[in-house]
């Protein structure tokens, strides 16, 4: 059964200001949604709400599909890569990814999840496996952080400016990985100012701040 993310009449506020009012949309397997808008329009707020990190004022976010229980919060089937990389600078890249694989991987998919070393090869950084992530450059850190998407496979990717600090080649690789994820039935919601190379994605433009 393909996945379906349904957002109904979602209202979000930050500091008493309503940023998103009565937003409804549906996203099916293989689809991508690009959230655009000026700074302060509520892009990150919307993404954090989808990731279950922010309680909406009203409305519902639900996910259905293969292996998704009816009462599961959408967040446990989603990955959120935000502005910070969620990497411990004292741990090596391999240790960081191994930890996230164990912490975020679902029981049903753990045996199919790739090993941290394979993931590092996939993001083009096999040589840094044994380096503490504190030593890596911003772009390398971001690539290790994106590796989290692979060590614990989850259908919904919530990406907040994922291409920040990535070089041209890594951006192309990210675009290719996102295409692969959609082909495999995954969903992507991304907030961005720069084009991410997502083909025929839906666009959601959040209005100017009131």
């Amino acid at each position, binding site marked *: 059964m393909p996945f379906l993310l349904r957002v109904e009449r979602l209202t979000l506020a930050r500091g008493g200001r309503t940023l998103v009012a009565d937003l409804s949309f549906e996203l099916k397997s293989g689809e991508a949604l690009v959230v655009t808008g000026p700074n302060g329009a509520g892009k990150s707020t919307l993404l*954090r709400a989808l*990731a*279950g*990190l*922010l*309680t909406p004022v009203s409305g519902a976010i639900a996910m259905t599909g293969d292996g998704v229980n009816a009462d599961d919060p959408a*967040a*446990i089937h*989603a*990955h*959120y890569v*935000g*502005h*910070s*990389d*969620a*990497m*411990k*600078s*004292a*741990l090596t890249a391999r*240790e960081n990814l*191994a*930890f*996230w694989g*164990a*912490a*975020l*991987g*679902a029981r049903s998919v*753990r045996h199919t999840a790739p090993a941290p070393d394979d993931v590092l090869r996939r993001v083009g950084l096999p040589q840094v496996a044994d380096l503490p992530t504190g030593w890596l450059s911003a772009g390398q850190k971001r690539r290790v952080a994106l590796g*989290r998407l692979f060590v614990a496979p989850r259908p919904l990717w919530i990406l907040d400016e994922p291409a920040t600090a990535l070089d041209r080649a890594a951006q192309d690789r990210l675009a290719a990985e996102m295409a692969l994820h959609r082909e495999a039935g995954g969903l992507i919601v991304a907030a961005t100012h720069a084009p991410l190379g997502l083909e025929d994605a839906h666009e959601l433009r959040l209005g100017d701040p009131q």
Partner: protein
Amino acid sequence: MTAALSALFWRELKLANRIGGGAAMGVVFFLILVTIVPFSIGPDLNLLSRIGPAILWIAALLATLLGLDRLFQSDQEDGSLDALRMSETPLELIVAVKCAAHWCATCLPLIAAAPLFGVMLAMDGTALAGVTATLAAGTPALTFLGAIGAALTASLRRGGLLMAILILPLAIPVLIFGVSASAAASGGTVPFLTPFLVLLALSLASIALAPFAAAAALRAMSD
């Protein structure tokens, strides 16, 4: 879920060891606190051995607070907390495991060092055993209560002092029963078990309740 929790436990221990010297740092701080007391009150052995348990307890309390403010703050800053909250494991269990790891990394070395440092305060064998037993029974309460303060101040830049102010009043009952049980161990009118059992009860209650309070605070903070 158990795999996720054990991965978290080992990650915390690894981090404690790699950042800031881990166990050694807390023990050295403990040692310094215990050492400066005889300097400030003078080398009266009778007085020192009488107030020894209290000194060890206060020193252990302060050494426990050391580093506790970073319990959630570092995860909050680097985004790990967001990702942890998206795991299938309830946040309450994540908090409990982080506290358990913090206790193992900072309090266990203190408990092991307490009998050695007690000798410096002219305490006798039974008093040393009493203090060690009460520290082992009481420090979980300090760690878990401290986790509430750490969660409340996780998103504040300089939350360490505020956390201490929030937590120290809550630690008073633990201190009272901890010190009175250690005093009872080396003679006195109260039997050892009476305050010791209350101390155990305080620890068990904090272990059971504090993760819920801390998890609620973390959720509220991020909204």
